[in-house]
């Protein structure tokens, strides 16, 4: 049966496409060239969250996508509206997050004339989108919308942008939504090659010192259960990247914590001594490998990834398997057995006992690590969103994640200002979960205007500012590598965050003593309101341990400061 076509404007067609794709919420900001689209939104069933800066619309769509696995959608007008999305799109691109960004554009006939609020956003976003479109015919709207959602969410996910000239949104078209996508040039591989999988299994079964190295690809492929099954069947330890955090339960005896620059010592030692690395949905980023020539020199490498371009990009791979992490792991499980890893696990247990993550607790000063532990104790199933910097690393190190999609952080691009707007998308996607934005006093000021959004829309996220008066991660590097010359990293007393929260109508709490930490967290959770907690933490606490830039990852050192 063919669907009857219906006459509608381009703008209504766009909204209808969103509806057909199962979109319930979009994040955006209106403007001249998207007026017809906003008019069509006015009486549609789709919820529109009005942010206060377009960058936040992209981050909120990203947070929504990370929390759910669905495609997040953001909408902005032409010119500055579109360029404000850029950081958010780049953030999603680097972490392979499926979002669709819709931008208004000046009418077709005016493109190229430097018209008011014109920017060549398809050109600008060429290197930071999986694909993008400049609509040139209103009749293409249904097909291109369908393709955009398909491309964003399949294969290696990523952002897709559609630039929409205004005149096309007022044109009448015959609306027919295609059921399938026909793209002859786009066919992602999902099933792993079975011969390669068997070869990998043989290698795994005879390895005595394997390490599973899991990244964000495990989460985007919903492969966590298979990952756990593989680790348990083989009895292989598991380390994750920052974006892989949550893919494996932190409290599991086979878990090594995060690896790399601020990973655990035992994860890094294990990688360096391993005879086999089983990389799943991870891309051997420089923050993970440290000095690449010294990385796991005795290990064979099995690399499971949906993107063939990641194979042997940074590290030479012995057994590549291109495919969806869940499908490949499911197949791999059929051929693996328990590997002879008893001695290896004992050695790792010894490292874990000898070199645990640790900090020296403070009597008078609040230790940032302590806040993370207290948040976990108060609410074990909270979803933790972060900004970028020291607080991000402490959250990854000290929160005991037990399930995927509960740690949401900008890994690849490292975008300060990501967390708060992303937490808006997360909370909307998961209204029953407690959502914390772990923030620094630097990062928060990059998108603090969204306090208006969370109050207006009553989105009760909790912002925990780790206020140390510094751009802390940069200060840490200045302390270690620039002789404590704190060049432009001191931001002390720049703002009264409690008053700022109150000015927007949010709840503001200030915490100066360790004893006040837990009550404030509980008050924030109980309030059911958007809440900002301004934690005055130890000013010069360092993230420890640390691999200096350019060093091998086993050259990892302790940096803790006295109480």
């Amino acid at each position, binding site marked *: 049966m063919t669907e009857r076509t219906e006459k509608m404007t381009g703008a209504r067609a766009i909204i209808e496409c969103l509806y057909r794709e199962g979109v319930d919420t979009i994040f955006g900001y209106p403007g001249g060239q998207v007026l017809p689209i906003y008019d069509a939104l006015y009486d549609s069933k789709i919820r529109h969250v009005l942010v206060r800066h377009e960058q936040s619309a992209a981050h909120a769509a990203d947070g929504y996508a990370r929390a759910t696995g669905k495609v997040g959608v953001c909408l902005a007008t032409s010119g500055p509206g579109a360029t404000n999305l850029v950081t958010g799109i780049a953030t999603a691109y680097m972490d392979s997050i499926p979002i669709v960004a819709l931008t208004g554009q000046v009418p077709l006939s005016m493109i190229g004339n430097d018209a008011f609020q014109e920017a060549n956003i*398809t*050109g600008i976003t*060429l*290197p930071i989108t*999986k*694909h993008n479109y*400049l609509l*040139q015919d209103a009749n293409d709207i249904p097909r291109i919308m369908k393709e955009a959602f398909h*491309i964003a969410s399949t294969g290696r996910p990523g952002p897709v942008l559609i630039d929409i000239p205004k005149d096309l949104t007022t044109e009448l078209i015959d609306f027919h939504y295609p059921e399938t996508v026909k*793209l*002859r*040039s*786009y066919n992602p591989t999902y099933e792993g090659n079975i011969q390669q999988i068997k070869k990998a299994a043989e290698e795994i079964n005879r390895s005595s010192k394997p390490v599973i190295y899991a990244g964000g690809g495990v989460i985007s492929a919903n492969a966590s259960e298979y990952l756990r099954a593989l680790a348990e069947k083989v009895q292989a330890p598991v380390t994750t990247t920052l974006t892989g955090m949550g893919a494996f339960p932190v409290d599991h005896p086979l878990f090594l914590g995060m690896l790399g620059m601020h990973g655990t010592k035992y994860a890094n030692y294990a990688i360096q001594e391993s005879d086999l690395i089983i990389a799943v949905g991870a891309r051997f980023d420089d923050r993970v490998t440290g000095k690449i020539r010294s990385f796991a020199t005795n290990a064979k490498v099995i690399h499971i990834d949906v*993107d*063939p*371009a990641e*194979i*042997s*990009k940074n590290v030479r791979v012995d057994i590549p398997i291109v495919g969806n992490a869940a499908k490949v792991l499911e197949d791999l499980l059929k051929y693996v057995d328990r590997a002879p890893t008893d001695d290896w696990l004992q050695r790792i247990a010894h490292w874990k006992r000898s070199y645990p993550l640790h900090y020296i607790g403070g009597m008078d000063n609040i230790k940032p690590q302590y806040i993370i532990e207290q948040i976990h104790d108060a609410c074990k199933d909270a979803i933790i969103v972060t900004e970028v910097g020291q607080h991000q690393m402490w959250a990854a190190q000290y929160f005991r994640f037990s399930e995927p999609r509960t740690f949401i952080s900008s890994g690849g691009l490292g975008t300060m200002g990501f967390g708060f707007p992303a937490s808006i998308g997360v909370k909307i996607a998961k209204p029953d979960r407690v959502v914390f934005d772990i923030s620094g006093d630097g990062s928060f000021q990059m998108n603090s205007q969204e306090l208006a959004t969370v109050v207006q829309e009553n989105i009760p996220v909790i912002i925990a500012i780790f206020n140390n008066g510094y751009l802390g991660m940069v200060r840490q590097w200045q302390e270690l590598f620039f002789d404590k010359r704190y060049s432009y990293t001191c931001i002390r007393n720049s703002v009264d965050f409690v008053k700022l929260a109150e000015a927007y109508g949010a709840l503001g709490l200030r915490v100066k003593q360790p004893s006040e930490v837990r009550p404030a967290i509980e008050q924030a959770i109980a309030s059911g309101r958007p809440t900002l907690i301004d934690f005055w933490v130890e000013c010069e606490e360092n993230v420890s341990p640390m691999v200096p830039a350019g060093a091998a990852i086993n050259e990892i050192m302790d940096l803790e400061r006295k109480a």
Partner: protein
Amino acid sequence: MKHTLAVLVENRYGVLSRVAGLFARRGYNIDSLAVGVTEDPTISRMTIVVRGDDLVLEQVTKQLNKLIDVIRVTDLGTEDTVERELVLIKVNADVKNRSEIMQIADIFRAKIIDVASKSMIIEVTGDENKIKAIEQLLKPFGIKEMVRTGKIALRRGPKSI
């Protein structure tokens, strides 16, 4: 090492900038790039000559394949491939040396396509070595202008890519 890639792409707005942009931002060097529509009007074919070792070539190929508008990438190699480039050379020529230049053109089976009182335009087709050779021979007369299409190439035999 030089590689010749045949890249089939959707014949669509913006595809060239996607491909060129990819080379620029990943730091790959293009020696030449020729593009035109194929027997199927919805498909264009690019012939890209790229410099790099096998690892670079592997990355270039994979990254090109990731572009949604790229249909197929083939490394043509050199042995069973015919390669040609078309070059137009405007050279200083007067009554005294015109016949000498025409003789050179003749040896290379090049064509004279424009003759003026003080210049000639020579059209020459061939592989890289041939073009280098005629360029060397014409240099002493003074090459005023030169334009080349970039290399295009096809596999020998009945099979297509």
